[in-house]
């Protein structure tokens, strides 16, 4: 167990935990766009930067990304010091220049009192902040269908050779967890299209509701040993089936009583 001070209050943490997790557990809100508990911390957006110091540092301070900083005992953390706010404002200002059309970035900017970026806006902005959350989640799930390509100005997220990725199963985890919602996908009729690849959605055999893609179900069935028949009907029809089955059992005992 490690004891540290966050914004003047003593907090407890487990050895090896990252600072951001502890800060959030204390109920302190700090922005972090590239962070997700399912994947390893990456430190791409830098918004979770906090000020740290220790008594023995004689007044010296350091600014670190809290998502990547393991907790230390006797650490004194300030999540909203004037310099941290200044740093965060600059980062948001830069993000706003990169993604002027992103609702989330604009809301974040408004929270920090920025209405217009002081930098030059990118003319054909794609709203991607290159945090790599999509690629990391895809990797974590074991598909690794997309990755960042090129370097510098040309860096972007794309499937290999910009073609329909063979490893993608259309689970939408990348699109649904993108902090700026830039990954496009469409669910039309029986088909889902993402990364220029078309997937057939499973249609509930009873009510016709669309569930996950066939490819995803096949992968789950093979790798996790789940019978393919589980995926045939939707969750609602599964519940109805269970009710019918249990109803049958109950009716026997009712007959027995009467």
């Amino acid at each position, binding site marked *: 167990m490690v004891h540290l001070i966050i914004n003047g209050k003593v907090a407890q943490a487990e050895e090896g935990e990252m600072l951001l997790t502890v800060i959030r557990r204390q109920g302190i809100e700090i922005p972090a766009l590239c962070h997700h508990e399912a994947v390893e911390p990456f430190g791409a957006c830098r918004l979770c930067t906090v000020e740290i110091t220790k008594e023995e540092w004689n007044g010296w301070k350091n600014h670190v990304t809290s998502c990547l900083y393991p907790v230390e005992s006797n650490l004194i953390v300030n999540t909203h010091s004037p310099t941290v706010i200044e740093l965060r404002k600059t980062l948001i200002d830069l993000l706003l220049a990169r993604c002027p059309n992103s609702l989330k970035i604009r809301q974040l900017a408004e929270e920090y009192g920025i209405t217009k970026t002081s930098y030059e806006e990118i003319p054909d902005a794609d709203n991607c902040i290159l945090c790599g959350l999509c690629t990391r989640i895809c990797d*974590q799930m*074991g598909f690794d269908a997309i990755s960042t390509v090129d370097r510098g100005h040309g860096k972007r997220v794309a499937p290999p050779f910009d073609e329909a990725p063979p490893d993608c199963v259309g*689970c*939408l985890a990348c699109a649904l*967890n993108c902090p700026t919602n830039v990954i496009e996908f469409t669910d039309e009729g029986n088909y889902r299209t993402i990364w220029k690849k078309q997937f057939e959605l499973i249609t509930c055999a009873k009510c016709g509701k669309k*569930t996950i893609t066939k490819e995803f179900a096949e992968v789950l069935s093979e790798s996790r040993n789940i019978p393919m028949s589980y995926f045939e009907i939707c969750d609602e029809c599964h*519940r109805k089936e*269970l009710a019918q089955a*249990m109803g049958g059992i109950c009716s026997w005992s009712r007959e027995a009583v009467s």
Partner: protein
Amino acid sequence: MKSRFVVTPNLCTGCRTCELACSFAHAIDGKLGKSRITVLNGGMKDLWIPVVCLQCDDPACVKSCLVDALRRNPETGAVELNQEKCVKCMACVAACPFGCSLFDEQHDMVVKCDLCGGDPVCAHFCPSEALSLKPITENQPHRQQMPTSAPSTVK
């Protein structure tokens, strides 16, 4: 003392108080949550079945989760979903053979019964004891065995 959450469908009146209690208990920021328990008709007049997660011994939802967001809580025995870790891929919703992993559209998250951390709210509100918490005594089987066929002699 260890207790067990027992569902007795024959006592259910179909009043759906459990659904209300569940929704209120899982409200976020004043918005009602999706009820983890559903009362459905069992195929006969006045036969109501409260359908709720069975906390399977070998859960398909846990097997289907590719990011380890679903884990069994050793203290309560409930399979719990870590919302922070969930990537909303809907694998568990599709894989559960009893349809007890649900998607809450209003809060945009996947939800499932976690037995309210060991003290289910629905059991407290059930007026007819169809849902109840019963203490576990020694020498009791882990799970009550369901009959697989109709009784041969009907009195």
